[in-house]
C-alpha cells in the first residue's frame, strides 16, 4: 500500500520544481488548495514544497521572492532591487490614489461592510467620487444593501485590495485602535 502512495506522489524535488513553475505562471496569487488540485497531490506535500521553495530562495539570496498574498503564493522581485528594476523598466514610483480616496479606502477597510452615510460621518465630507474611483480600480466591491431606512448600499474591500496592498488577509492590517496612540 505504501508503494501505491509512492507511485501517486512525485518525488519531493520534482514537486518543488513544478510548484515553482505554477506559482510563476499564475496571474494571481495561487492557493495551496488549487496547486494540490491541479497537481493531484495532497495539500501537506504541496505546502511543504512551497515552504522549501521559499527557504531555497532565501538561502541563496535570490533576486526573486515567494510572497504570501491574498491567501495564495506569488512570485515577485525582491524589494531591495527596486532601483535597478525601475531603471530597466523606466518607471518611477507614483501614488495611484488621491488623499481623499486613500482615506475613504481606510474607512471601508476597517468598517466594512459600510455605507456611504457612515463614511460621511467619519470623514466629514462627501466621498462619492472617491468611492467611484475605488470601484473602478476594483479595490472595493459592493456588499449588498443594509436593511435600514433607504436600504443604502454597503461596501467592502476586494481581493485586489489585498493583492495591491500586499496583504495575506484583512487581519494583517494593524488594529484601528493602534492608531489611537499616534493621535494627540
Amino acid at each position, binding site marked *: 500500500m505504501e508503494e501505491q502512495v509512492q507511485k501517486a506522489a512525485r518525488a519531493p524535488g520534482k514537486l518543488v520544481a513544478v510548484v515553482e513553475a505554477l506559482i510563476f505562471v499564475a496571474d494571481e496569487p495561487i492557493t495551496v488548495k488549487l496547486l494540490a488540485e491541479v497537481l493531484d497531490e495532497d495539500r501537506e506535500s504541496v505546502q511543504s514544497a512551497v515552504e522549501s521553495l521559499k527557504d531555497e530562495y532565501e538561502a541563496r539570496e535570490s533576486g526573486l521572492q515567494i510572497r504570501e498574498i491574498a491567501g495564495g503564493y506569488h512570485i*515577485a*522581485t525582491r524589494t531591495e532591487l527596486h532601483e535597478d528594476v525601475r531603471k530597466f*523598466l523606466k518607471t*518611477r514610483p507614483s*501614488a495611484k*490614489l488621491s*488623499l481623499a480616496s486613500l482615506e475613504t479606502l481606510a474607512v471601508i477597510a476597517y468598517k466594512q461592510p459600510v455605507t456611504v452615510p457612515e463614511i460621511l460621518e*467619519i470623514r*466629514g465630507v462627501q466621498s462619492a467620487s472617491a468611492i467611484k474611483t475605488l470601484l473602478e480600480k476594483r479595490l472595493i466591491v459592493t456588499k449588498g444593501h443594509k436593511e435600514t431606512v433607504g436600504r443604502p448600499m454597503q461596501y467592502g474591500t476586494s481581493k485586489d485590495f489585498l493583492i495591491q496592498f500586499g496583504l495575506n488577509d484583512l487581519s494583517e492590517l494593524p488594529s*484601528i485602535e493602534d492608531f489611537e496612540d499616534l493621535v494627540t
Partner: protein
Amino acid sequence: MDQEQEQFTFDFKTETAQIVAESRDELKLTLGEFAGPLDLLLYLIRREQANIFDIPIATITDEYLKYIRLMKKLDIAVAADFLVMAATLIEIKSKMLLPRDPAEVEGEEIDDPRRELVDRLLEYEKYKSAAQMLYERTTVEQAIFSRGPIDSDDNNAEINASVFDLLTVFQKIVARHKDEIQMEIHREEVTLADMLKDLKRRLGLSKELNVLSFFEEMHTRRELVTAFVAVLEIVRVEGVRLTQSKTFGDIILRMA
C-alpha cells in the same frame, strides 16, 4: 528621484496643506490638498499648537473662516461640507459665549459644546493615520515587481475573432448573394430589434451559433447588414463571446 512625480504626490508628515504668507505685498499660497473639513480643522489646531481636548474655539473658528474666504477669493469651489463645518464651529463658539443656566444644579456634569467635535476629530484622525499606513504600503508594494500576464485561452478567447474576421465573413456572404439580390424594394424590412430578438432566442435554444450560417439565411443586403449589426450588438451588450478555433475558421457565437 522624487522631483516631478505624478499628480497625487504627498507626504503625510510634512506636506499637509500650507498657507504661506510671504513678505512683500503679495500673498504667496501653497495650497495643499485637504481631504475635508476635519482635515483642515486638525491642521489648524496643530498649527496653533493647541490641545485637541481644549480647543481655543474662537481662534480656530476665525482661522477656519479665514481659510474658507481665501478659497473663495481664489475661486476654489468651496464644498458644502466645509460650510457645514463653519456653521458648526460658529454654533459651538456662540454656545460657549452664553452664560450658564443658573437654574442648573451645581455639580452636575455640564456638557462641553466642543465634546462632539473633539470625538469626531479623534475618530477621524485614526482613519487619517490608517490612510497614511495604506499609502506607505503602496510605496513598498511599488518596489516589488511581478511578471505581466501570460497569454492563455482564458484571457484571450474573444480576441481570437477580430472585427476584420467578421468583415471577411460578411464580404464572403455578400459575394455569394450577389447574383440573388433582387432589385425590388421591400417596405417591411426586418428591424434591428427583431433581429436581436431572433438572435437571442436562437442563442438561448442552442447556446451557440455559427455566424456564417446565420448570415447565410439572410436574403437581402439590408437584412445582412442588420444581421451583422445585431451580432456586434449582442456581443457588446450581452455576455456573448465570439470564438474562432483556427485562423480563417468558422466564427461561433457562444453564450458566456
